[in-house]
């Protein structure tokens, strides 16, 4: 696969067409119908959550949020292959993959409501928090890869970045280090065509993003990221390659951000209606839905019903997050060091004294 689809051949790996028809049976990944249905449901859950969060945001119940809308197949396929032993190093549009590792929607809500606890995944191991400084997390993935190889473990790292992120120096250094060290890391570029308002054509003049693999002597491939099966197949092959010591791998998953960059962004400023519509036809959920319906594995009725359930579940977790306990002053000091130094204890003490003074002051003022 990596020979045929070497990025210099300018081929995009695809398994399913826009109507959910399998183009070439031989390219299908090994996956049970049941697993595909589960994947579809998970993608649907992510989308339901996404759309609902945008509403919460409009109601002022959550701060800035970056939706995954349109890119669900990439996380969906990752969720289908990632194991408990493996590491997930997300950028910030990998909700499905994160949930599959045991992160809860409530935790993600907490983060976007403004609590650090939203990064303290209680039931998820080996997931790094969402990374805000673009592309910087890829180096962590390379370092984790080193530890895996060093300790001869059978683990893998799935690391994500956007098309915009490929311009950062850290992207270069991460894949280069991983290449020299030959570590089992699968780097996945979610090429959703834009970095905020900047189109990929203004990020780089390279023929594709996948071809950047050649700069590091690593395997690279471009895949239709809105095609669940193609994505899964590429991940399966990448996993095998890593297990054979042929990692790292660089995957360019071609997709489209159907929503806004974040809830404070207005994409009509930089995208045309036509462009948006042309991508609607390639929607990853629609395609998988058609495939499943054709095979009799799914129905509109089921979909309606499950969306209702999902909405309730999203709401439940959202309200749980809304009821999260008040943010206490001591929490801003507590996690800075393994043991809080005297300097910080003094600062905390001063803050507490101030609060005492303030409540007295306010009490006095209101007495007058």
């Amino acid at each position: 696969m990596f020979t045929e689809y070497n990025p210099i051949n300018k081929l995009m790996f695809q398994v399913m067409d826009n109507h959910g028809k399998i183009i070439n049976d031989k390219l299908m990944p090994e996956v049970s119908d049941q697993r595909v249905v589960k994947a579809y449901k998970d993608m649907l859950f992510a989308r339901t959550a996404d759309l609902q969060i945008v509403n919460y945001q409009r109601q002022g119940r959550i701060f800035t949020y970056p939706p995954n809308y349109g890119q669900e197949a990439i996380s969906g396929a990752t969720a289908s292959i990632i194991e408990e032993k493996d590491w997930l190093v997300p950028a910030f549009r990998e909700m499905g993959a994160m949930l599959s590792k045991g992160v809860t929607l409530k935790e993600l809500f907490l983060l976007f409501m403004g609590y650090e606890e939203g990064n303290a995944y209680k039931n998820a191991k080996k997931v790094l928090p969402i990374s805000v400084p673009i592309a910087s997390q890829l180096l962590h993935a390379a370092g984790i890869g080193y530890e895996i190889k060093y300790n001869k473990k059978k683990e893998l790292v799935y690391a994500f970045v956007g098309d915009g992120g490929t311009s950062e120096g850290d992207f270069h250094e991460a894949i280069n280090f991983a290449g020299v060290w030959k570590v089992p890391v699968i780097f996945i570029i979610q090429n959703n065509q834009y970095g905020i308002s900047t189109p990929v054509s203004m990020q780089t003049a390279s023929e594709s993003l996948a071809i950047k693999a050649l700069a590091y002597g690593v395997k690279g491939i471009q895949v239709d990221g809105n095609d669940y099966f193609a994505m899964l197949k590429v991940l399966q092959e990448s996993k095998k390659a890593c297990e054979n010591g042929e990692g790292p791998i660089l995957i360019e998953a071609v997709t489209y951000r159907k929503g806004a960059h974040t809830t404070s962004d207005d994409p009509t400023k930089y995208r045309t209606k036509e462009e948006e519509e042309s991508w609607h036809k390639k929607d990853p959920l629609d395609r998988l839905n058609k495939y499943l319906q054709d095979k009799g594995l799914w129905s509109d009725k089921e979909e309606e019903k499950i969306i209702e359930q999902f909405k309730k579940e999203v709401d439940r977790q959202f309200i749980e997050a809304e009821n999260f306990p008040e943010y206490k002053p001591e929490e801003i000091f507590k996690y800075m060091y393994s043991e809080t130094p005297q300097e910080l204890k003094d600062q905390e003490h001063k803050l507490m004294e101030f609060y005492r003074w303030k409540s007295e002051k306010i009490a006095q003022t209101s007495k007058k």
Partner: protein
Amino acid sequence: MKIMNMVGAINDALDIKLNEDKNVVVFGEDVGVEGGVFRVTEGLQKKYGVDRVFDSPLAESGIVGTAIGMAIAGLRPVVEMQFCGFIYPAMNQIISHATRMRNRTRGQLETPMVIRLPYGGGINALEHHSESMEAMFGHIPGLKVVSPSTPHDAKGMLIAAIESNDTILYMEPKRIYRAIKQEVKTGKFTIELGKANVVTPGNDITVVTFGAMVREVQKAMVMAKEMGISVELIDLRSIYPIDRETIRNSIKKTGRILTVTEGPMSFGLGAEISQIAIEEAFLYLEAPPARVSGYDVIVPLPKGEHHYMQDAYKILYEIERNVKY
């Protein structure tokens, strides 16, 4: 005169300089088509074309580094770092080149350029979007660091910055981007960089601050006044170099000084101002020069940010302690 907020005033300054000087170019992440995530550069690409106002690849070292090359070759780039927390990939270019090229070449090469940096908290943002690291930048030899607190200052200072032959870090208090509206002179004017502004004269204590904190201090001053305390408010405007003279004169009058900043406490602006106070007017001091600042912690996410921030009460608390000392 025209009523403007700070976003409008900065946009106006850029517009004036783009119009006047063909060497001025404006670039950075999303500053072109989109007009910047805060809409500060809105409309400029349409007006001046994609060669002069344009989107760069997403790479801060690249933005500052190429601006250095442009400046050496004769342009006057004005670049934007999208948020305060994203300037760090560019630190090497700033510390190792932008601030050194003139000294390194004994004046043969210069890097006249402005780095615009929206900074500071109070906007309910994600991590890395609320920092105020002026002290870190003030410690870099060769850099000038300035920050306006009003639309008027924003305009006059940015024009002065673009016309300067030095590398200027122009820190924009994004929290008050749209919070203050003011009459601003139309057309070109400049405000000398390096001079502080005595916003309000007073007798009992000098409060030194800049940017978004000016407004917070003003709120505290209302309460202080009720308590009979007369505050002299100094807006530094320039974080490096610091206007020692204005500080000296003020302390000689008030005998007390307090610095208010948003950044972490240790090695912050407060310590530098206090040091200047003791160097310039030790024998006039009636109380220890003090600082209100952030703590030595990461700026908390929105739900905890109020514990970190310096609101009117926290400032009043320190004013009171200092005056009672």
